[in-house]
C-alpha cells in the first residue's frame, strides 16, 4: 500500500490534492456531485474586505491550453463569508479549509486575515498577492519582493494560522519574491496564479473579455508552473503548494518532483467536475507505476538527479 499523506505547514493532509481558489466556490456545488471529504483540503473563493461584484461579463474566454478568466474577485466580503458561507461549508466539509484572501491595500489584507483568524475551520490563510496595489500605481503586490514582503509581514502580525503567500507568475523573478515572503515570515508559498493574457473578438474588433485581459489557466500553463515551482524550491525552505494546469495524477507527481508539497487543481474542476476525485483515485496506481511508496519521498526529487 502506497502512502499519499503529506503535511502542509504542520497540518496533515490525507493526500496533496487541493482544489484551487476560485474554481471550487465554497465547495457546495461539488459536494452535490461527490463527497468532497476525499480532498486533502480546498481553497475557497478569494475573499476581500468589502463585497465585490467583480468585472463585467464576458469574463471567460478560451484558448488552446485552457481558459482565461476575468472574474475580478467576485465575493460577498469577509463578513458574509464568515456569517453565511463558512457555516454552510462546515456541513459538507469536515477538514480544515484553506481561506484565500485578497486585497487592494496592505491594510485590507491584514484586516481580512484578522477576521478569518477567528474561524476554527480555517486551517491555512492563502494570501493572493496578484491583486493590484491601489496605493502603488496599480502594480501587483506580487510583482516585487518588497511589496510581497510588506503584505506578508502585515498578515503575519494578525494571525497564528499558517500563512501561505500565493505568488503571481507575472513577477519578474518569482524566486526572489518567494524568498522575500519567507524572510517576512510566510509559512509556505503557493504558485502559480493565472498568467495575464488576452483574446480579441474578431467580429467586434475589441478584446473579448470586458476587462480586456484575463488570467490564463489550464494545461497550457503547466510547464510554466513546473519551472517556477522548481526555481522557488531552490530559493526557499518553506513548503510549496504547486499549481497551474494540473489535470492528472501524473501532473501531481511532476509538480511534487519539482518541489511541491501539495498540489492545487483549478481549471480542471470547471470542465471535469469530478477531476479532483479522479486524480485522488488515480494517485496510488500512478505512484506504483513510478515506484513511489510515499509521496513525501519525492518532494523536490527532480533536484537530486
Amino acid at each position, binding site marked *: 500500500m502506497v502512502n499519499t499523506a503529506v503535511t502542509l505547514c504542520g497540518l496533515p493532509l490525507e493526500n496533496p490534492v487541493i482544489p484551487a481558489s*476560485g*474554481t*471550487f*466556490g465554497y465547495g457546495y*456545488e*461539488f459536494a*452535490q*456531485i461527490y463527497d468532497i471529504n476525499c480532498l486533502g483540503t480546498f481553497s475557497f*473563493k478569494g475573499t476581500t474586505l468589502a463585497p465585490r*461584484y*467583480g468585472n463585467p*461579463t*464576458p*469574463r*471567460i*474566454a*478560451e*484558448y*488552446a*491550453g*485552457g*481558459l482565461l*478568466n476575468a*472574474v475580478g474577485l*467576485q465575493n460577498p466580503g469577509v463578513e458574509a463569508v464568515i456569517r453565511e458561507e463558512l457555516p454552510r461549508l462546515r456541513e459538507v466539509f469536515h477538514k480544515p479549509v484553506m481561506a484565500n484572501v485578497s486585497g487592494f491595500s496592505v491594510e485590507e489584507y491584514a484586516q481580512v486575515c484578522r477576521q478569518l483568524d477567528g474561524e476554527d475551520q480555517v486551517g491555512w490563510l492563502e494570501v493572493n498577492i496578484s491583486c493590484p496595489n491601489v496605493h502603488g500605481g496599480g502594480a501587483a503586490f506580487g510583482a516585487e519582493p518588497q511589496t510581497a514582503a510588506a503584505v506578508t509581514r502585515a498578515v503575519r502580525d494578525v494571525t497564528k494560522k499558517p500563512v501561505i503567500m500565493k505568488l503571481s507568475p507575472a513577477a519578474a523573478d518569482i524566486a526572489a519574491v518567494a524568498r522575500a515572503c519567507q524572510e517576512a515570515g510566510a509559512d509556505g508559498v503557493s504558485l502559480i496564479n493565472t498568467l495575464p493574457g488576452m483574446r480579441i473578438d474578431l467580429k467586434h474588433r475589441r478584446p473579448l473579455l470586458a476587462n480586456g485581459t484575463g488570467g490564463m489557466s*489550464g*494545461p497550457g500553463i503547466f510547464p510554466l508552473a513546473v519551472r517556477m515551482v522548481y526555481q522557488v524550491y531552490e530559493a526557499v525552505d518553506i513548503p510549496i503548494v504547486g499549481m497551474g494546469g494540473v489535470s492528472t495524477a501524473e501532473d501531481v507527481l511532476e509538480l511534487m518532483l519539482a518541489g511541491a508539497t501539495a498540489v492545487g487543481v483549478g*481549471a480542471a*474542476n*470547471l*470542465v471535469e*467536475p*469530478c477531476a479532483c476525485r479522479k486524480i485522488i483515485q488515480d494517485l496510488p496506481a500512478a505512484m506504483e507505476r513510478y515506484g513511489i511508496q510515499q509521496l513525501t519521498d519525492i518532494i523536490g526529487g527532480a533536484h537530486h538527479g
Partner: protein
Amino acid sequence: MKQVTWTITENTPLTPDTYRLRLTGDTEAITAPGQFVNLRLSGFYLRRPISVCDWEPGAATLIYKVLGHGTAAMTHLPAGTELDVLTGLGNGYDTSLAGERPLLVGGGVGIPPLYGLARRLTAEHRQVTAVLGYNRASDIFLVEELHALGVTVRLLTADGSAGICGLVTDGMEGVNYTHLYTCGPEAMLHAVWQRCRTDGQFSFEERMGCGFGACMGCTCRTKYGHKRICKDGPVLRREEIVW
C-alpha cells in the same frame, strides 16, 4: 446536475447552419424546459452549453447553430459518437405561472428551448401562441413541429422572405397573453422586455467557465443581487432583470 454519456443517433442540418442533434442516454437530471446541457468536444477545452430542445426518458434533442469553431466541429460528429455531457443544468422555465394563454417569443437559436416548453404547456392544456423571428426564409426551423403541438405560430423574418416582415416585437402586437416566455439574443430580450405587459420569464446566454455555478464566470446583476446565469438562471423573472 449529472455527468453522463450520450450517444448521437442523428446530426442533421435543418437549415444551412442550424443542426438537430438527437441523442440517447440518461436524461433523468432534466426536470424543466429551458434547462441546458454542457457538451465536452474533443479538441476544445471548455464545454459548449446548448439548451435542451426536447427530451424524454432515455433520449434528448438539441438544436445548435454554427457560430464558431466548436459548433463547426460538432457538425462533423457522426451517429454513434459518444459525448461527455453535464446535464440538467440551470433552473429552466416555470410552467406553473403560465396562465391560460402563455406567449412564447423566440429568435433564432433561442427558439429550441421553447419547443420543450410548448410541449409541456400544451400537455397542460394551455393555449399557446408562439412568435418566432428569423433572419430569412432559409433560416426557418421548428415551425412545423410547433404547429403539430397545436401552438398558434406567428412567423416573422427580418427580410420579409417568409411570414410577416419584421421583428418579434412586431409579432407580439395584438396578442392577448397571460404570461410571457422568451429566449433569444440579448437585444431581442431587451426589446421584448420593454414591450411585455405581463409577468414573464427571460432566458439569457453568457460565456461560461463551468456551467454549474462554481466559477462566477457568468454572473449578472439582478434586483435581488448577483445571479449566476448557469445556476440561478438561465431564466430570470421579468421584474428582477436589470439592463
